[in-house]
């Protein structure tokens, strides 16, 4: 079973601060981590490989230092890392990103499953995974919390998964190849092993730029991105509520009075 996992390197937002002047993240001195939801995707891919054999390829689009994120996944058990990096890709929104990743997956060609985290903790859009599947023209199952079954018999390859919804979950069966995005309920990511770390240190990371991917220049990078960020701001903190005191009768009367006066 050949699996492709798409990951993103993000700032470790547990320690991040916002610049009050510009309302943007202060990135200086903030450590970069693999997007936590992607770690569940990597873990699930390794578990599938352990069960069915095959190969796990992890790819990321980002600056040269995203190399570290790929090595981290190799230390956990991924076989190969591909870094998609080119100045031409800078400023990509979710449309341009999913198109570029699609071109990279297309170049790999031979795969049964693509796994993404449900969303990245910096942008929080949850659009790139579904975007890739649309470009690839393969089915998608988002918010997967459990893979129930994988069948790899030629001619009848399918996956059956539980998809988390707000009310409960849906069981969805899809032919392979297919793309899934996973939620944190799906597994508990392992820690790296020492031998894994040594392998990761020595691993050759494959690097692909715009020329390697046969991309349409109109759909990549900032110019290929239809999304325009108009403004970023920190929402004002909620003001403390008002506590009404007294016996139930008094309180309800005060409440009615307030509602009558405050609501136009």
């Amino acid at each position, binding site marked *: 079973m050949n699996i492709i996992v798409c990951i993103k390197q993000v700032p470790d937002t547990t320690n991040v601060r916002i610049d009050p002047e510009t309302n943007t993240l202060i990135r200086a001195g903030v450590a970069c981590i693999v997007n936590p939801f992607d770690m569940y995707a990597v873990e699930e891919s390794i578990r599938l490989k352990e069960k069915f054999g095959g190969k796990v390829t992890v790819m990321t689009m980002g600056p040269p230092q995203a190399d570290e994120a790929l090595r981290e996944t190799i230390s956990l058990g991924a076989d190969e890392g591909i870094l998609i990096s080119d100045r031409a890709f800078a400023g990509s929104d979710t449309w341009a990103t999913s198109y570029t990743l699609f071109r990279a997956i297309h170049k790999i060609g031979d795969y049964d499953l693509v796994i993404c985290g449900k969303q990245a903790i910096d942008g929080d859009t949850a659009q790139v995974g579904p975007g890739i599947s649309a470009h690839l023209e393969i089915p998608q199952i988002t918010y997967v919390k459990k893979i129930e079954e994988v069948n790899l018999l030629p001619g009848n390859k399918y996956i059956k998964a539980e998809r988390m919804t707000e009310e409960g979950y849906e069981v969805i069966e899809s032919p392979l190849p297919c793309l899934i995005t996973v939620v944190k309920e799906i597994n508990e990511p*392992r*820690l*790296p*092993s*020492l*031998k*894994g*770390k*040594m392998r990761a*240190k020595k691993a050759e990371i494959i690097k692909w730029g715009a020329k390697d991917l046969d991309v349409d220049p109109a759909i990549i990078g900032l110019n290929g991105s239809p999304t325009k960020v108009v403004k970023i701001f920190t929402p004002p903190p909620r003001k403390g509520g008002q506590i009404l005191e007294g016996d139930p009768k008094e309180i309800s009367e005060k409440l009615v009075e307030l509602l009558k006066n405050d609501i136009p």
Partner: protein
Amino acid sequence: MDYLLTEEQIMIRDLARQIAREKIRPVAAEYDVEGKFPWDIVKVLADSDLCGIYIEEKYGGTGGGVMDLVLATEELSKACGGISLAMAATALGTFPIILFGTEEQKQKYLPDIAKGKKLAAFGLTEASAGSDAGAIATTAKKSGDHYILNGTKQWITNGGEAEVYTVVASVDRSKGARGAAAFIVEKGTPGFEFGKKEDKMGIRASVTRELVFTDCKIPKENLLSKEGMGFIVAMKTFDQSRPGVAAQALGIAQGALDLTVAYVKERKQFGKSISSFQGVQFMLADMATEIEAARALIYATARMIDSGAKKVAKDSAIAKLFASDMAMKVTTDCVQLFGGYGYMRDYPIEKYMRDAKITQIYEGTNQIQRGVIASNLIKESVA
């Protein structure tokens, strides 16, 4: 301070640090209260390949030495000085095989220990033979192709949980220390049973039991080295393992100081953070200084041992003595800086003080260490 670690040693340190932070710290208090053996953490250590860092690659380890073990023990002990011992005490039980084992013995026992599938333990101490190791009363009587073991070993770390035991017994009591021999005994051998689990002051996540031998028959292939070498096996083992105890003490002290620095920044008295008071600052500075001195000493000793140096007894004893006395002092001062809260079990700091105490006592009391240091000092001055 930068100790110019190798890339591999940095990986070991970082991995052990990650395990300590993510897997051990959250459960340390629970294991301390309940006094249960941390099998789930042992599983994590096994999966991470850390169990084999001091074992040769051809036996499934990663080929490091005492320095690698020291780095891992230090990091794990920052989170819990008891849990870290599952691995450190296994090393103590494994060193006799590494140092004196035949190729067959190594092939048979080291791979499972390196993989973390089996733990090991070392059995020397008895009720009336602790510091006086020559007075051991456990006997090993040769009978055809076997030895018959009789006697009781006391306070054995990992006792009952480990699968592989290296045990020192007397083949000829009339010869005292020269009549001792070391043996490998596997758990499950008929006549080999365990006594009660001890209820300890500290390192409560580590298990300590008696090993009871009653006409326990072991094959003669399980003899380590030769008859009469038991005491030498024990002493050479301690030369290798004492930096590990020192590293455990170092980790306990550093872990306590880290918590204390965080606490004194938060704790306010007289309208100010107590970290702004010079009296507190001087205590912190002294602790940091002594910890760093111990670290430099331990790393230097471990590297010297790994380089193949022959005469290491004195320096190994110096490292163990200094680090464990330092840890006791530092953890006591850390409790002091936590004030009344420090004395309460609700706060994590008193555990560090309880855990530190054992490092002054086991693998040779600090009085024995001073004896080792002094006797070597005097011997050297004659030469």
